């Protein structure tokens, strides 16, 4: 038996949770683009502007041993570009680092 009134109640439980959610809202689109020859380009669109994309790209470049950059786009905001097919890598990295939830990731391309 439990008395409801005696339960500890955290009035901020909801608030804390939702604030966490707010950082990354909306889908993150991971795309691949073909370049000349066998070369490809991976773009990551939709990362929250709260994140410091420059830091992310720096970490990614080191982790995946590829080059990359942040591109500013009038409609889509800051977009991450990485050389090569990094779709798997970036998805794993983003979820592992807790920046994006797996259900928010959307991978496009073949």
């Amino acid at each position, binding site marked *: 038996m439990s008395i409801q009134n005696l339960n500890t109640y955290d009035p901020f439980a909801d608030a804390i949770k939702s604030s966490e959610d707010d950082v990354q809202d909306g889908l993150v689109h991971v795309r691949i683009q073909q370049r000349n020859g066998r070369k490809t380009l991976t773009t990551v*669109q939709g990362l929250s502007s709260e994140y410091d994309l420059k830091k992310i790209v720096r970490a990614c470049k080191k982790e995946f041993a590829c080059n990359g950059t942040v591109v500013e786009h009038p409609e889509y905001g800051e977009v991450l570009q990485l050389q090569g097919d990094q779709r798997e890598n970036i998805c794993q990295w983003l979820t592992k680092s807790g920046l994006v939830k797996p259900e928010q990731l959307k991978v496009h391309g*073949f």
Partner: protein
Amino acid sequence: MDDDMVFDPSLKKKKKKKTGFDIDAALAGEQGESTSVEAPAGTGDVDLPEDDNLDLDNFGKKKKKKKKGVFNMEELESTLPETPPAEEPEQQEDEVIDDLDLDIDFSKTKKKKKKKNIEELVLEDDKGEDQENVEDVSGDLWSGTDRDYTYDELLERVFDIMREKNPSMVSGKKQKFIMRPPQVVRIGTKKTSFANFTEICKTLHRQPKHLLDFLLAELGTSGSVDGNSQLIIKGRFQQKQIENVLRRYIKEYVTCHTCRSPDTILQKDTRLFFLQCETCGSRCSVASIKSGFQAVTGKRAAIRAKTA
């Protein structure tokens, strides 16, 4: 038909299985259901034949899905003897089966794993059957005679019963949505031809333009339909890659999100696309096709020349 309603949840769950492998949830759903459909239990034997041969052919496919079936079967058998066989619902059941058995076979790749369980499952089924046979006198071939039943007969019987009780689980009778694979040929070094593009559009009952938009957006290239009604895509693509994209298209824009039936209509309503299901009547909006951010891959000089 209100039986439809009964089966719906499991269908939904099943979808999950394919994509997300939420086996536990699905199991829970199906078990709950199996008990509710229990009544017509052993009666099905009367209408044994129908598609026995077909059945055997389909075994391979069937089993793949049936990993969870192992579990479920036990459940079924255990609950069986308690319920008295009732004759009437049978008819209805059959109809339901027909209704619901439209299933699409995207997950060719994923199914392979489950194949191993076939033997196991079959054996288990048999055991359960034997016991049941003793009490349950029915219209089986061997019922009046002294002879031993053969393995094949038993097998047929098991699947008949399963189909009766749990049509959504046993995919044996399911009408697979079989598509011709896309014929993808490289043209030169830089272009790819998708030869049976219009044919596939026809089988999916979708406007070629819609599929074209989707393909090009997903692949992040450009392309067009040429005179021979084949699609020319810029860039190198293999058949497998195109298949993947097609599969995603079917999942999003062809199959009903509720009952997975491919019998749907795509309508445009105030700039939004809606998917209307002909089988279950559900209607839901689908994502619009957006190509999103496209990085500059060509020569920058050329772009500058164009704009300036």
